[in-house]
């Protein structure tokens, strides 16, 4: 694709995001590194509060209510260091080369604007299309994401669309300018299972048609297994395991990934008790020393309390940040 040999579309190195308030000081993302190749669907999986959403927002420097006090590390996109961009350059990049869709399709659309206008907005702004051309392109985009009767429905307002159809509209907005990277943060969590199935397959189809890369964030390992080429597992602000989807799901090499998979009802015989992970994730304002998973880990040894485990390659392209990774695989 467009990336030169040896360089990925997105390279994230040692990303750190810190939030500080008078009463609180926490590092939500602590030294996260990963790469996404052109045309690849990359998954980021973890439970609430593990830092996956903050990671996405740091990539495009869009935060909701609370702004981080410091962002560290480097993010390179298509060869450019994003830290050097000024606000104007960011505006040109967001929605044009990198787009993001959010979890809640109900609150992410402007209720007072026709959906066609919302899709056309980016095309007029980033691609300099005239209103008429942009409207035609918007209708085409709406049809491409599977909204029936696009010629008619582009004139309707968001309230007239169901949850699944609103998520399709959001995808149409995000993809109208043909971005190189789509960041999808829990795009199907608010949707029913058959609608989720439709939306995930739509994202895969559009990836195949348009050749874009996708960063898919989810808490659902099933969604990862059905959608992603490669995956990184996050726990308490750090990536604990990464690799090709089949490697991580079929041969998990980190105790947290193993425990997460084992906790699923589908992986326990009916009648047997489920195997939850004891305890709760740590408070990121005062994370445990050493490996952050050690207080809940069945494999923990004394060294886990002191040493921060570095990622160890357990097979080609498959890394686990566990001191005992070699024994666990």
């Amino acid at each position, binding site marked *: 694709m467009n990336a030169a040999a040896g360089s990925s579309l997105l390279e994230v190195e040692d990303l750190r995001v810190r939030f500080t308030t008078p009463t609180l000081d926490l590092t939500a993302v602590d030294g996260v590194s990963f790469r996404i190749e052109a045309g690849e669907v990359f998954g980021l999986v973890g*439970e*609430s509060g593990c830092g996956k959403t903050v990671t996405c927002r740091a990539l495009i420097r869009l935060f909701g209510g609370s702004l981080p006090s410091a962002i560290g590390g480097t993010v390179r996109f298509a060869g450019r260091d994003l830290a050097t961009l000024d606000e104007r350059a960011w505006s040109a990049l967001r929605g044009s080369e990198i787009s993001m869709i959010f979890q809640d399709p109900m609150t992410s659309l402007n209720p007072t604007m026709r959906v066609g206008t919302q899709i056309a907005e980016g095309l007029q702004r980033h691609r300099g299309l005239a209103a008429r051309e942009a409207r035609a392109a918007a209708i085409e985009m709406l049809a491409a994401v599977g909204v029936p009767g696009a010629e008619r429905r582009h004139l309707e307002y968001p309230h007239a669309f*169901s*949850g*699944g*159809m609103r998520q399709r509209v959001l995808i149409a907005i995000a993809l109208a300018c043909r971005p190189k990277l789509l960041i999808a943060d829990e795009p199907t969590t608010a949707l*029913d*299972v*058959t*609608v*989720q*199935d*439709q939306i*995930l*397959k739509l994202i*895969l*189809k559009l990836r195949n048609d348009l050749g874009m890369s996708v960063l898919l964030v989810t*808490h*659902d*390992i*099933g*969604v990862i*297994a*059905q*959608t992603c080429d490669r995956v990184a597992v996050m726990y308490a602000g750090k990536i604990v395991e990464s690799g090709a*989807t*089949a490697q991580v*799901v*079929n041969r998990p090499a980190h105790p947290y990934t193993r*425990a*997460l*998979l084992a*906790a*699923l*009802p*589908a*992986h*326990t015989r*009916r009648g047997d*008790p*489920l*195997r*939850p*992970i004891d305890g*709760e994730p740590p408070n990121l304002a005062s994370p445990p020393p050493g490996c952050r998973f050690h207080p809940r880990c069945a494999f923990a040894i004394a060294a886990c309390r002191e040493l921060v485990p570095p990622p160890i390659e357990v097979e080609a392209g498959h890394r686990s940040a566990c001191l005992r990774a070699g024994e666990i695989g």
Partner: protein
Amino acid sequence: MSTIVTAARGDAVEQPAAPLLSAQGLCRRFEVAGGASALLTRRPRRFLQALRDVSLELAPGETLGIVGESGCGKSTLARCLSGLDRPDEGSIRWQGQPMAAGSTPLQRARRVQMVFQDPYASLNPRMSLAQTLDEVLLVHGLAATRGERADRVDDLLLTVGLAPRLKHRLPHALSGGQRQRISIARALAVGPQVLIADEPVSALDASIQAQIINLLEELRERLKIAFVFISHDLNVVRHISDRIAVMYLGQVVETAATEALFERPAHPYTRALLAAIPQTDPSRRSLVPALSGELPDPTAPPAGCSFSTRCPWVVEACRAHEPVLLEQARGHAVRCSNAAARNASTLDPIDASQGESRVSAR
């Protein structure tokens, strides 16, 4: 555990002991507010049929799972069964007698209790855990003195796996899993025989979800409570339920023992629902959605079979006549009049004719 679903068609072949809780022909409709413009234009009043002729039985100690997607009526059913809402038609019976006969509302509340999806919204944010539980005991007169109530509160906290030292905390100072434990403790405080749980683990992370499901199963064993477990997550329902009812657009479309439903799903909607669950096996992927189209407008359900607008097996007769829920094997009832569809194992007839399944149902 093997109650038969004959109530659905009304001709009991074999009559087991009266079920603990049963519903016959429940209908519930809500008027859709048309706003000022509807008044001015005198548009006809529109009704949403949340429940359409739903019949169910729950045996003592049994867990009945109810699955279906948003808007299928599962929460309305839960509210009707628990007495929080009243059906427009149909009846709810308790041990064979009409629910309301000779009982006070408090007595009925002590039979059936509910646990809701969002433990944060269903707990009073200004009341500590002890106050929340104490209030229930006081209202129901379940302990004579303040001291006895305090002892009961500690017992209840221990029953749901919470340390009694947490009892002075407010809900905001608890994690999601702990809050759901308190909701369960509050429901158990009156010693119910039936617990209706409406999406009790949907708001929780997978590792915490497993803790709460284990707790519910343990309580069921220990206290011999019957459960109605409502969820959109089929893997969770499969794990916990003895029997499952699948709902679509206000109707039960299939009901069977759990393993029979997963092994031989007979309604095309059930098969699509099962195929849409994202499996953790990455080698089994498909680019084709299990089900296309959208849920029909519930204020104007399709003529004939409700699922006919999306069913790959649809034939002319499906649009002409509304199918009834018929028992096709012992304890396995299906609302589908197309025998080819009921007996198939594939998502659609094209797969069947090619002799291979695009996605197996499991």
